[in-house]
């Protein structure tokens, strides 16, 4: 597989950025962008701050 991809990259013509927005490749670009964006938009920046919420609740030394 790796060898085939390397050969393919040598033999094929240079890819162009405009091709990303044509036909089936447009859908592929949109899917990849959407999946990337979902990582941000699912609120992980907040959800990863669980420690901060615990800290707020237990700041009076109830915990540990």
């Amino acid at each position: 597989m790796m060898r085939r991809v390397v050969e393919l990259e040598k033999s094929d013509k240079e890819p162009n950025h405009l091709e990303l927005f044509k036909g089936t490749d447009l859908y592929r670009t949109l899917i990849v962008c959407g999946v990337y964006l979902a990582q941000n938009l699912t609120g992980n920046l907040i959800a990863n701050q669980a420690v901060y919420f615990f800290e707020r609740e237990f700041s009076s030394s109830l915990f540990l």
Partner: protein
Amino acid sequence: MSTNSAFALGLITSALQMIFVMLSWILTTYLGRRTIYLWGSGFNTILLVALGVAASIPVTKGTPAATAASLAQASLGLIISVLFTLGPAPASWVIIGETSAIRLRPLTTGIGRASYYIVEIPCIFLGSYMLNPTVGLFSLRVLR
């Protein structure tokens, strides 16, 4: 909670995330990435709505109800971030790597990553507003 135990809890969260990523390797032998991604995201959506509800119920500060609501937010946040690493997070990297055409793969991934950073900037901005107790914008909702 002392600084040390807060740090320990942060480490525990990271360790749990690592374990759940390893569990996701087992999960992928039984389920396809479409199933994992869609059901994982759906389940996480439900939990995020529950977190939002827990943060929106009006309670008076210092009462047991306020403590319960705060603890619910904290636990749900931890569960969401850990479950995200079990299902949607590894599946999303697979989808990103496998969707694009082989010839265009570097370009598609590059464009995707660029859009990720463009959206991440406002997300960080909003996140710091949400978590900052001295800024009034969200402080009553997310925190109390």
